[in-house]
């Protein structure tokens, strides 16, 4: 198997495994949370998401 084929196979497997882990995480994590309004602007609620700037 040449390098390109090997990489493309590994690429597909990696993302499929990542997708599987994501599904597993969604299924196993606590999903009890207050869902925020669809749009923050005009919602009347303060922004609360995590951000690299420190919040």
């Amino acid at each position, binding site marked *: 198997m040449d*390098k*390109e084929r090997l*990489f*493309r196979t590994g*690429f597909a497997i*990696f*993302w499929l495994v990542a997708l599987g882990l*994501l599904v597993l*995480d*969604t299924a196993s*994590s*606590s*999903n009890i*949370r207050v*869902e*925020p*309004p*669809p*749009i*923050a*602007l*005009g*919602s*009347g*609620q*303060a*922004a*609360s*998401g*995590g*951000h*690299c*700037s*420190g*919040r």
Partner: protein
Amino acid sequence: MRWFSRFLLVFGALAGVLAVTLAAGLRQGLLALLGIGFGAVLQGARFGFTTGWRDLIERRDPQGLWAQMLLMVLAAALTLPLLAGSGGELVGAVAPLTISLVLGAFLFGAAMQLADGCGSGTLYKAGGGSPLSFVVLPTFAFGSFLGASHQPAWIELGGLPAVDLLAFGWPTALALTVAACGLVAWLAGRARGNTEGQAQASPQAVTQQLVRTGTASFVAAARPAQPRWATRWWLGALLLAVLYLAHLVVAGQPWGIVYGMGVWGAKAVSALGWDLSGDAFWGVAPHAQRLVEPILADVTSVTNIGLIYGAIAASRWNGAPKFTAPSGRRLAAAAVAGLVMGYSARMAFGCNVGAYLGGIASASLHGWVWFALAFAGSIVGVRIRRRVGA
């Protein structure tokens, strides 16, 4: 058959957005859609922050930096009035001017040249099928987790409080931001040399030239040839600015990358048995709560996932992307650089997106400090990159 593969890519995007909406709510679904847009634009326009800086350092080509400054100006113009009048519903990326910011930004700038991609660059290139970014991604996530864990200790080293120019009113903040971006773009344009026969100008030469642009002696220098500003750069900046605005309106906060990658790293080590309950960062609110919730509930994570898919789709829109195999040495260097990048991004309150774009577009002074230090680090990084044999 190309139409069929394109149909599958679009179908996959819509199915993904629907799945995220059902699992985590409409806001998260919208953010996934915006993430797909970010990835498609970054990949389609090959809008690389790292490449833009390297083009200037190595070839004196300012097009990438011009596009970044255009993006900053547009993003600031679109969002500063909203930030000022939102009453807390929207917040900007504002951070203090700490010692950790200075050190972290310099390290990040150097490492991103070795990794051949910054925060957004690593994600979209990994999605686009770059072996180098593919290797960088996991180490970046682990570094981001570790850097966040140590962030409180780094901040304790001290520094100055945050300087938010919005305190002077949004018209003043915007005017200052536009003036500063214009100055940087002008300096980059002046630093541009006649590229004929100078394709590999050394970083020292570029540094000297950049310094000379600020002096009267340079005024007398011959004007270089005027290459066109490639469409992909300015169009990419335009589209990214619109997406940046939409992200702020939907999420209530600027576009970010690194926080989400830290969450992935923290989730991974937790699953492997690492107890984070006593951690100075991940063990306290609100971060501890985000480790309990699904990844899809995290703002930056869901945008990142969308971004990766958008890059995958854009890179395969016209068939399979080209493959170039890097050397083992290059891969190893990139993996280490990814670790440094993830760690230093948390020292510096973000990467090129969260700190540089988000900071400057939010009129926070830390964005400019980040830019200056990361660019200096990139000059060093380009030299190291040559030695590694990129």
